[in-house]
């Protein structure tokens, strides 16, 4: 039995947000879309509901979807960090060149307060995020 199937999950219009393990939130995009302000706030609200103010890491899985991150979504996300949001690390799991460009643009131009990296495999991303959680 996969325990993650029973983990608390919040479904929004374009992504499912699941508390995969303690302190690890998985955001899986479920359709091609542009992540505008309303979607970004929905996702952020779900993250806050699942983490209850505790230290956490975020894993964004593009899930082979074509997702465009709007500037406002990037700005809102980039402000979150270890001090006030208790966000210890953020990983992007990318599959396509477009995903890479979106995630890369976020890292280089929005300059997130929280350490953020791009990965090709789920296990590598989770391993790195676990080290981020331990570093707190």
């Amino acid at each position, binding site marked *: 039995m996969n325990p993650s199937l029973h983990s608390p999950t919040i479904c929004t219009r374009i992504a499912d947000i699941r508390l995969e393990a303690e302190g690890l939130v998985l955001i899986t995009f479920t359709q091609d879309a542009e992540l*505008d*302000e*309303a979607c970004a*706030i*929905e996702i*952020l*609200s779900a993250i*806050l509901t699942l983490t209850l*103010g505790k230290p956490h890491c975020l894993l964004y899985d593009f899930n082979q979807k074509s997702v465009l991150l*709007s*500037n*406002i979504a990037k*700005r*809102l996300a980039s*402000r*979150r960090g270890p001090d*006030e*949001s208790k966000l210890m690390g953020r990983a992007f799991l990318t599959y396509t060149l477009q995903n890479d460009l979106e995630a890369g643009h976020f890292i280089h131009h929005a300059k997130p307060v929280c350490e953020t990296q791009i990965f090709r495999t789920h296990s590598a991303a989770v391993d790195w995020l676990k080290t981020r959680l331990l570093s707190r």
Partner: protein
Amino acid sequence: MKPIPFDLGEVILAEPGIVCVTLLKDGEVDEQMIVTLIKATIQLSAGKPYVILLDFNGKNVPSTNLAKQLVAARSEHESHILGRAIVSQNLQNTIEINYFIQHYKPSVETRLFKNKATAMEWLKLVILSQKTN
């Protein structure tokens, strides 16, 4: 439309295109609360351009650094906010708002007022000028 309550007050659509946030209690605005407020303003504005009136209503309501950053990040182009008027009745709030305007440099034009009537007048002018453009 019904007011949307949050921990420290309520958000209502006072008039078409004017979203009014009224504080009813003292307290601190943190990340969770600002996300609730943004969600409420998006819901009430229904995707149309709008202005925001934030009335401190005499309450002492400081906000965290992150809350200020999230508010300042919102833009006219992407958030559809045309203007933001903040009504402060005491020195503490006035200092806090001036600090927000000068240091966080909100993308949306933000002005401080001493009373609700003049704030409303300015917001209506902002809506009018947007319509004529």
